[in-house]
């Protein structure tokens, strides 16, 4: 199997789907000639032409409105939003249309679109190039939300998202694009939506996480191992619908739960996992559910390292879950 970084894996998925389904079209700001500001779509316009891969005006409302319209007519648009921080001018077509068309039309129309967008911090990007707003998609019934953590998953989940008949928000941690490499299956490679991945088996504490925080959590696990604490790490991969069974199953063994995510804490996806467990399986809990997250503040620039969850914060969270810290 070829070794690919995250960016290459995504490009491979796009290329594969463009080649195999002429309903697939790819567009966004600078995705054509420029190949996207992170070069994810590099070479695709050259290969597939300007009808399949094209630039748009600088208007996220137009991009997402266009995607919805194309999707209801049977195409499979893959829209890139340059940074997820800039999606909001186009939230209305996503929130009011994409998420609700199947339902409101009595199943006459549906919206097989994908919104790809870079998210996440620790890139020196400040308030508006670092946010993790997955909660604002995950709350919206009718949308699916996918966040891959490895190149192989990036490819397999993106292909699954494009083939899904409902709108998918697909978030890519921009810090991983060129930092991460692994073997990725060539050709057809589908990772089904809704299934978590066990990143690491462990006994003491279940850690539910996704995206780049999977890797930070792994580092924390190594550190904690030396202290005799063993983490069971689940990478959710799909946030909506999330793999509730995998979480409960692991909790049966550990009885302790930590959720790690870089988004601000309040009304976050981490809150959802905590609530889900407190509702469905409070009896399994031997200690507090701990949310290790970013703070409830705009994302800072110069002091961003104090914002981002890191090994220390995760380890402290694990110890709180074990009641070793207050």
């Amino acid at each position, binding site marked *: 199997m070829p070794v690919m970084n995250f960016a290459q894996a995504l490009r491979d998925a796009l290329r594969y789907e463009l080649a195999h389904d002429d309903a697939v*079209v790819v567009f966004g700001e600078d995705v054509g000639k420029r190949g996207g500001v992170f070069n994810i779509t590099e070479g695709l316009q050259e290969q597939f032409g300007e*009808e399949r891969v094209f630039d*748009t*005006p600088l*208007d996220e*409302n*137009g991009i997402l*409105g*266009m*995607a*919805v*319209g*194309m*999707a*209801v*007519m*049977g*195409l499979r*648009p893959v829209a890139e939003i340059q940074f997820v921080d800039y999606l909001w*001018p186009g939230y*209305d*077509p996503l929130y*009011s*249309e994409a998420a*609700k*068309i*199947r*339902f*409101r*039309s*009595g*199943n*006459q*129309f*549906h919206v097989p679109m994908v919104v790809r967008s870079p998210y996440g911090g620790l890139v020196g990007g400040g308030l508006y190039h670092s946010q993790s707003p997955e909660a604002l998609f995950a709350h919206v*019934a*009718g949308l*699916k939300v996918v966040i891959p953590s490895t190149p192989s998953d990036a490819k397999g989940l993106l292909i699954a998202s494009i083939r*899904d*008949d*409902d709108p998918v928000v697909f978030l890519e941690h921009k810090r991983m694009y060129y930092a991460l490499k692994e073997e990725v299956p060539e050709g057809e490679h589908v990772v089904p939506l*809704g299934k978590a991945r066990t990143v690491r088996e462990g006994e003491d504490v279940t850690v539910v996480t996704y995206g780049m925080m999977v890797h930070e959590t792994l580092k924390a696990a190594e550190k904690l191992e030396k202290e005799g604490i063993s983490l069971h790490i689940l990478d959710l991969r799909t946030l*909506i*619908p999330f793999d*509730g*069974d995998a979480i409960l199953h692991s909790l049966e063994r550990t009885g302790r739960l930590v959720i790690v995510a870089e988004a601000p804490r309040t009304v976050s996806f981490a809150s959802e996992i905590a609530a889900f467990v407190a509702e469905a399986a409070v009896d399994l809990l031997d200690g507090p559910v701990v949310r290790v997250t970013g703070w409830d503040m705009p994302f800072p620039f110069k002091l961003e390292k104090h914002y981002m969850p890191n090994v220390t914060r995760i380890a402290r969270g694990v110890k709180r879950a074990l009641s070793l810290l207050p």
Partner: protein
Amino acid sequence: MEAHKRKGVPIPIQPFTEEPLRLLDEQGNPVVDFDPEEHLGLSPSRLVKLYEDMVLTREVDRMCWLLQRSGKAAFHISITGHEGAIVGSFYALRPEDWINGYYRTPPAMHVRGIRLAEIFAQLMGTALDPLKGRQMPGHLGAKKAQSFTYGSGVGLAHVVGMGMARALQYRKTGGVVVTYGGEGSTSEPHFHSALNFAGVYRLPLVVMIVNNQYAISVPRTQQTAAKTIAEKGKAYGLPGFYLDGNDPLIVYHVMRQAADRARAGGGPALIEALTYRLDPHSSADDDRKYRSEEEVKHWWERDTLKRMRHFLTLKGLWDEEKEEALKERVRLDVERAVEEAEAAGLPRVEELFEEVYGERPWHLTRQWEELQAEMQEQEGGH
């Protein structure tokens, strides 16, 4: 939506006029010398049918009001006064075309091939409703009629319709998308995004603005400082046509040319049809708070139905007797349709949970189970 023969030398039209284009004056007399068949491609029988469909639309609307007042419909939002603009424009389209309507189009949707009973079923939310009772009255759409389902947010039809046009262009179907909205909808970002993208990609899109001079209580002059709505086309490099929207013939004529130009790759167009809302904004509105009775009366005298009837009469195609017969026929059709719609009963509860996604995810299954238990308990009378 039957395709009609096209013939003749079209009467030339210009964008960006200061006065609205028209073929008929306020009474219905022709302002230029034209022959509907030769110049517009409207045969006498189609001309008559156009009028009949306008009358039917008005009668559907009146019945909607009745159903609303009698509590059978939760709400109604009227088309009365807008029939010339809406039915006239529907007539100009071809079978391969799509529309993305708004809350004033439903009573006219029979022209697009939706059955009257379905129109009333949508109004009342019964099981015959193509939308399965999911939407308020005023939101009818149906895939079989190539009419997208409107979603309440003013202006969204334009930007979603733009994307639909991009799909038609990509698939080279030769179809055109027409999106509808009031003049208020031109203030929303969606109008801007739709026209800008349409201009850049030269999409087969016609944005039809039915300017009835108010957005609820806000008058046109407080909506935008632009001289006309049509002029907004200049911001996007596309022609804007300013029409007398109470003249169904100019609406038909300009829409047909704009659509044909768009389908031929000539790019999008904007149409402003100036008309007046003769009813309150909706069944929830009290229009006496913001406009005078005289003003409303002034516009009733210029009602589009009267104008069209006058023209047909001039042409020898219409008389009192025909009018009576039509009214009677329409009354019966409408009544029968209402009965059928009511008889259909309620939509099914479980479908709510099945149609959020293509496949029901586990959490919705659980919630459905919760609801079933709740319903059982309620039925059990606990």
